């Protein structure tokens, strides 16, 4: 009975909140620069649950919503691995989250994620957003979609949102490494210059 009341009141609150927000024409909800990002407990491809709080030594995180099946995400696989190799030891590990509904996109099922990670030798956790609860909170709309977080007293603060770099087609032709620039700045205690960028990506499958 108590549980039922809890559920009903939770629903009422949700309805109340949505009544106020529906009229707002806001296409992209989710985090803005400076917001505190939620932690999560998501299943890794090795079956273990992973949370940001597990990383007691980290200075921050490179959270990347990505998947197996999007050609843009695939084009960035090696670069995501390189980011982890370069920055995990410096305190900014890559945490990859696969946000797609795997009923719609079977190529992103956990077994497929495991196979891909093994084939590519991923050294970062590759988590499944089971129930698709986390990506909407971040406001990710596509894969790949990056959030650089910095650990602060208030929590993990969003410092950068967007693309990995400015050329998905050809790594050799990249002129701006957005994520590296952001993390380098944070490591030096500086302000991130380019805080938000955009890139074409695959809609997250719901």
């Amino acid at each position, binding site marked *: 009975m108590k549980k039922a009341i809890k559920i009903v009141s939770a629903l009422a609150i949700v309805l109340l909140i949505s009544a106020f927000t529906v009229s707002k024409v806001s296409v992209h909800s989710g985090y803005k620069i400076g917001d505190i990002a939620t932690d999560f407990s998501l299943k890794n491809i090795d079956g273990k649950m992973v949370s940001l709080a597990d990383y007691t030594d980290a200075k921050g995180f490179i959270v990347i919503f990505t998947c197996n099946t999007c*050609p843009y995400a695939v084009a960035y696989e090696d670069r995501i691995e390189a980011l982890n190799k370069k920055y995990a030891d410096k305190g900014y590990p890559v945490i990859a989250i696969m946000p797609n509904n795997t009923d719609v996109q079977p190529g992103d099922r956990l077994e497929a994620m495991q196979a891909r990670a093994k084939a590519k030798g991923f050294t970062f956790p590759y988590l499944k957003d089971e129930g698709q609860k986390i990506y909407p909170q971040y406001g990710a*709309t*596509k894969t790949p979609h990056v959030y650089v977080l910095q650990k602060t007293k208030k929590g993990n603060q969003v410092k950068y949102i967007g693309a990995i770099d*400015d050329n998905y087609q050809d790594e050799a032709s990249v002129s701006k490494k957005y994520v590296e620039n952001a993390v380098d700045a944070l490591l030096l205690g500086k302000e991130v210059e380019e805080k938000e960028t955009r*890139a*074409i990506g695959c809609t997250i*499958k719901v």
Partner: protein
Amino acid sequence: MYIFIVMNIRVLFIVFVLFLNCKNENKPQEITSTKEKEYVLEDKPIVEEYDFNAFEKFLNIKDDKVYVVNFWATWCAPCIKELPYFEAIHENYKNKNVVVLLVSLDFPKQYQKKLIPFMQKHKLKSKVVALNDPDSNSWIPKVSEEWSGAIPATLIYNKEKRAFYEQSFNYEELKTEVNRFIN
């Protein structure tokens, strides 16, 4: 401003013919000429490739038409799903001055392998252009400030107003939006 015309199939064919001729000089001439004829009859679609600077003119045509500009790619499942609705708009709204433009974001190396075969298979009637400009951060906001970069995405405009949709459509929804632009 430059436009690449992607006609590699024809070039490949010629190279292939040359190759055949070199390899086997006894090959009867008629066969190759018949093939060439077939090729012409097949009427392979040609895709114009643009960088954003060259492409931008398609977003700012100021005449009496309504332009429905859909950003898609052959690898994008929700895009493929809604493509027939854009084709239906092209067909059913021709007389109402509505023009559909399908902007492919396929990777250039896929134009011959995927995009052109797809256009053939589905007999696409709307105009298709390929947008190839890797620095998407520079041009996405020029299509719309609202666009995060996810596809499918659609811009509908005429000389007076424009609306941007980062979403998938069914036919009814698309019709409703197009009708807003028709007085």
